[in-house]
């Protein structure tokens, strides 16, 4: 094999149709033996993309369903944080954030709307771009609106430890995936039997932080990769655990996820951030799910510097009629929302799940899905 194309060649196999057919047969066999309805939840927008794009739901037996959980960073960023960023942008501070985030509406407008009103809003690819820009124009005040999950947080922590220019502050709205998934595992409200865990988040955190939640809830978890075969295999592994009645924490994404995770990244994160209660937009406050800058970095914290509000918005979280919160938690499918593809489209999104490319609504709209997928249990 050509040395240069080693991994791409290997990954090609992760889309192999024969393996997919075989795995589908195995899933059907075991689902028939289980008989009762099984709900599986994944908590990553990229998994939703793989599942929808490759039509994996259509391959599954009637008694197995896969639901999209709270795995889209833009969707779970509270309206209050967006409102505060918009306010600062309109006050003349240069606000920098990721493309999807700039288009997501707070209770009144998005950062792009603020830009249309004359504010200086810049889209960046990562925190490094933000630092470069702040260094280039030392006479301006800059704000980096830091959203994302534990996958994104270490880069910001690393740059903060390395030192950032004085005219740059951070509005930290990171969320910690293990805590969010853990809370969902321990609550029985959603009726989820098993979980596909987010592979890239677990690449950083490792499988370890999930263990305490697993011990308490005894629900099967598989850490999964993002190719179609990865997801099919993960579903089979979960069903096998359920059939044998031996719940486990299993790793399918062995090429990237380990028990310990990326220890270097974790150490960097621990030096800069503390965990605090985190609000998931339109849903609930999750314990230990949010990141806060440690006291020694207070001078970089925009919440301290500008005295920003936090938590649940006093105004309405979404536009009237939108059911974004329920879509984010996997309670309903996007077509069950009265605005889906009527008032709310990818071209003119009204809610965050339609803005972000990891949002369930955007993914379903992109694949032109207008009907509701069958559910085994309500």
């Amino acid at each position: 094999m050509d040395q240069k194309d080693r991994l791409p060649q290997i990954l090609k196999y992760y889309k192999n149709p024969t393996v997919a057919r075989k795995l589908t047969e195995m899933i059907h066999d075991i689902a028939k033996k289980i008989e009762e309805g099984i709900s599986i939840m994944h908590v990553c927008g990229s998994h939703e993309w793989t599942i929808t794009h490759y039509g994996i739901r259509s391959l599954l037996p009637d008694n197995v369903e896969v639901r999209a959980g709270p795995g889209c960073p833009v969707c779970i960023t509270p309206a209050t944080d967006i409102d505060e960023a918009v306010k600062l942008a309109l006050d003349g501070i240069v606000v920098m954030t990721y493309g999807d985030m700039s288009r997501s509406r707070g209770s009144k407008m998005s950062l792009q709307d603020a830009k249309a009103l004359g504010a200086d809003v810049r889209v960046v690819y990562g925190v490094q771009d933000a630092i470069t820009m702040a260094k280039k124009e030392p006479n301006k005040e800059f704000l980096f609106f830091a959203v994302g999950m534990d996958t994104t947080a270490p880069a910001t922590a690393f740059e903060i430890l390395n030192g950032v220019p004085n005219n740059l502050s951070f509005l930290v709205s990171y969320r910690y995936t293990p805590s969010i998934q853990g809370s969902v595992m321990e609550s029985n409200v959603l009726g989820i039997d098993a979980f596909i865990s987010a592979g890239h988040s677990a690449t950083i955190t490792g499988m370890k932080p999930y263990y305490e939640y697993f011990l308490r809830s005894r629900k099967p978890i598989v850490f999964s990769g993002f190719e179609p075969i990865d997801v099919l295999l993960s579903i089979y592994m979960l069903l096998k655990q359920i059939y044998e009645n031996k719940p486990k924490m299993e790793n399918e994404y062995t090429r990237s996820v380990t028990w310990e995770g990326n220890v270097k990244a974790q150490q960097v994160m621990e030096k800069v951030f503390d965990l605090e209660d985190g609000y998931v937009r339109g849903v609930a406050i999750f314990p230990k799910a949010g990141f806060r800058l440690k006291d020694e970095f207070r001078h970089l914290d925009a919440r301290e510097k500008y005295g920003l509000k936090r938590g649940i918005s006093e105004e309405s979280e979404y536009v009237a009629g939108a059911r974004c919160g329920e879509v984010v938690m996997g309670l309903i499918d996007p077509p069950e929302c009265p605005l889906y593809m009527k008032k709310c489209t990818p071209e003119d999104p009204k809610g965050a799940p339609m803005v972000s490319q990891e949002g369930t609504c955007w993914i379903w709209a992109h694949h032109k899905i207008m009907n509701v997928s069958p559910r085994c249990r309500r």
Partner: protein
Amino acid sequence: MMCVAYPGRVIEIRGEFAKVDFGAGTIRDNILISLVDAKIGDYVLVHAGYAIQVVDENEARKMIEMWEEMTKELSEEQKKKDFYEVIGRGE
């Protein structure tokens, strides 16, 4: 997208940064690699401009061996048929 990470091959290292080849002509030369132990030639998973992990190729290969084993009783014709079904045309 935010939690998406793409694998790319490290082709040059300068201090904390590396030049990474993502294939199909996409090369970025400012990927931060301080959070992983990457060597030239390694495949790294890159997320928002920094590498989060070195991909374990042996593990990736082990999976393939398992699937080869799983599908070995299937005939070559069946495999060919599956392939042409996916690409949407006959032989």
